[in-house]
């Protein structure tokens, strides 16, 4: 039955609350949410397909560009799978450097999230403060890798850059500053009344629901699920590090904030341990250009949750298939549940609380006719033919050239 007081409001694909295009259609009764639906697929870039056309080394840089924030997560996850297929055992020093960069990345990602969360609840001062402090870790990443994001530190069989003793000093100094600032934010989150009002009891998802919907990362841990790839299935140097898995039983946005702040403190301690324990030795071993046939699955705890890569090789220098499952795809299922019985004002912070990264998530486009509401799957071959037709119309025709090329062989 049609409810006369019902308003349908689109959040996205273009909306100030969303940093990437994604569509949430929300039905409202007054300020209350009655129904919500999520639509993905506005930012599909065909990276998986493109990987099949490139060599493993080229793929490494392409994979790194899946995400602007957790770029190291994707590249490490991919390179681990490739190394497993090739049977490469990378040097210990390389494992430590990979872990160091990955923890620094987690620090910068969580600080970024804290600022975004502040902005979503209208607390711009928090945004300005956290992003100012985040510069400290960005500078460190630039110092170690040469880049602020897309570090390009991984290579098949190790890492590309070594860490010098004077760089260690600078890292430790920056970590001291960041630790002090994070303690201040933890105090702020526990005491500031408007933050507590806006975050507590908002976007709740119970432990059972989180498990059923397959939530990962801080979203799952804030619902009391102790799930962390770094502990469950240690990779890189995590088995040799001493750290706790931070969980919270609050199940709401406030719990997710507390978990992320706690993880920041754990990351600082991990960075200190890594710097202290960093062993001597080579940073890379020689890797073959052609990877032997085989397949491998690799898991990695990205700042947003479990990242999952599948690689199948066919003995050539190009992979046969690459499959990426970014953490947001696992968490997005829980968003509809979180929005149930919520208010319009809570939508931005609830969506932001899973720390979404939509462009990493999009794996396909489904084209929909707006009037007929019909769906339509486009195959690779039909896209190719359409491209050829389109260029023909522009006066660019390669058919004769292709024929000549085929004859000459």
């Amino acid at each position, binding site marked *: 039955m049609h409810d006369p007081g019902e308003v*349908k*409001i689109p959040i996205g694909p273009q909306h100030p609350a969303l940093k990437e295009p994604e569509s949430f259609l929300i039905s409202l009764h007054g*300020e209350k949410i009655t129904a919500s639906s999520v639509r993905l697929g506005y930012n599909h870039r065909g990276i998986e397909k493109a990987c099949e056309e490139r060599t493993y080394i080229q793929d490494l840089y392409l994979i790194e560009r899946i995400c602007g924030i957790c770029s190291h997560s994707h590249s490490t996850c991919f390179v681990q799978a490739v190394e497993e297929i090739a049977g490469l055992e990378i040097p210990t020093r390389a494992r430590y450097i990979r872990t160091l960069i990955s923890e620094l990345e987690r620090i910068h990602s969580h600080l970024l999230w804290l600022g975004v969360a*502040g902005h979503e609840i209208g607390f711009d001062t928090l945004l300005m403060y956290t992003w100012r402090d985040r510069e400290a870790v960005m500078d460190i990443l630039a110092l170690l890798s040469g880049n602020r994001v897309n570090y390009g530190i991984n290579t098949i069989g190790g890492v590309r850059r070594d860490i010098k003793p004077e760089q260690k000093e600078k890292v430790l100094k920056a970590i001291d500053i960041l630790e002090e600032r994070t303690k201040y934010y933890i105090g702020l989150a526990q005491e500031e009344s*408007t933050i507590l*009002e806006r975050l507590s009891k908002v976007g709740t998802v119970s432990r059972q629901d989180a498990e059923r919907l397959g939530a990962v990362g801080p979203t799952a841990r804030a619902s009391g699920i102790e799930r962390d790839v770094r502990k469950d299935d240690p990779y890189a140097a995590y088995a040799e590090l001493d750290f706790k898995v931070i969980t919270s039983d609050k199940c709401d946005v406030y719990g997710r904030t507390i978990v992320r702040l706690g993880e920041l403190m754990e990351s600082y301690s991990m960075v200190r341990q890594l710097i202290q324990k960093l062993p001597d030795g080579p940073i890379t071993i020689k890797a073959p250009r052609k990877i032997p046939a085989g397949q491998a699955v690799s898991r990695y705890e990205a700042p947003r949750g479990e990242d999952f890569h599948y690689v199948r090789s066919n003995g050539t220098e190009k992979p046969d298939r690459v499959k990426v499952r970014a953490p947001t795809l696992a968490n997005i299922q829980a968003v509809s549940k979180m929005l149930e019985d919520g208010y319009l004002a809570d939508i931005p912070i609830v969506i932001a609380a899973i720390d979404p990264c939509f462009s990493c998530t999009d794996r396909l486009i489904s084209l929909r006719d707006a009037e007929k509401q019909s769906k339509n799957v486009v195959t690779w071959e039909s896209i190719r033919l359409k491209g050829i037709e389109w260029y023909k119309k522009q006066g660019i025709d390669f058919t004769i050239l292709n024929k000549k090329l085929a004859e000459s062989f």
Partner: protein
Amino acid sequence: MLKAIFSILVFPGFLFLFIFSFVAEYVDRKLCARFQNRIGPPWFQPLADFIKLASKEEIIPLEADVTVFKLVPVFALTASIAAILYIPIGGERAAFSFNGDIIVVLYLLTIPTIAYFLGGWYSRSVYSMIGAVRSLTQLFAYEVPLFLCVLASALLADTWSLSEMANFYNHHPGYWFFNILGFAIALISLLGKLEKVPFDIPEAETEIVAGVFTEYGGRLLALLRTSLNIETVVGASLFTAVFLPFGFNLHHPAAIFLLYLVKVFSIIAVVTLLRSLFARLRLDQMINFCWKYLAPLALVQVVANLILKGILPR
């Protein structure tokens, strides 16, 4: 007659307010930036923004009611400007005054909010309509404590004219201090009126884009922004007259005017400080807060002033 035209067009009317509102916006933005550890805009930024917006194309949604859509910014602007004529600035006397002008000023200051509601409603965009409903809902929450506080101050002075009120407090130095609770409550209500954090619910950027202003652009948006700035200045001026009425018997008129400016900028600074300290509340939380705490406290101020009126020497 000539004096009246001068009052309306130059001082304290249109021209003065226009320039003053730019300065006020600059002070607000610069202070906010400094509180947030940013550098902030240069001094001419508000003027540059105004010129930029004014030179842009005017886009009106197809479904919008063109007349209302265009008239709303003008209504909001004129109502705020009209209010200043009855507020004593730079002395005991306002440009015009009569017994009962407090009510007129308060209602003139309500007109912009009603105008924003109409503008949002007739924009016919979901975001604007939700913003419009929110701004009206919020109006009913902050208006009562605000009016009660101003009323309490008027009760103590036993007059319905702002100029006479200023006169009374000037001859009874120190009496204004009894209204300090009312002043605090009125300041918080002012945040709601000016739609600033934590009460910027009607134009919550991350939720409903820009609320009632979503569909506005170009010249109309420039006028709307100016009317909001003028509302800030007029609201602060009203507070200087009602809650900070002292120092009117300085020797030089320039000194009195300077003191007025200091008072207004202090109020703006407090508003800016408050808006950089908090997160935005939800509409239901805001209404709860206003009715649970602000309105009862405002009533306490009214009762206290009724008792004080009997005790204090007149």
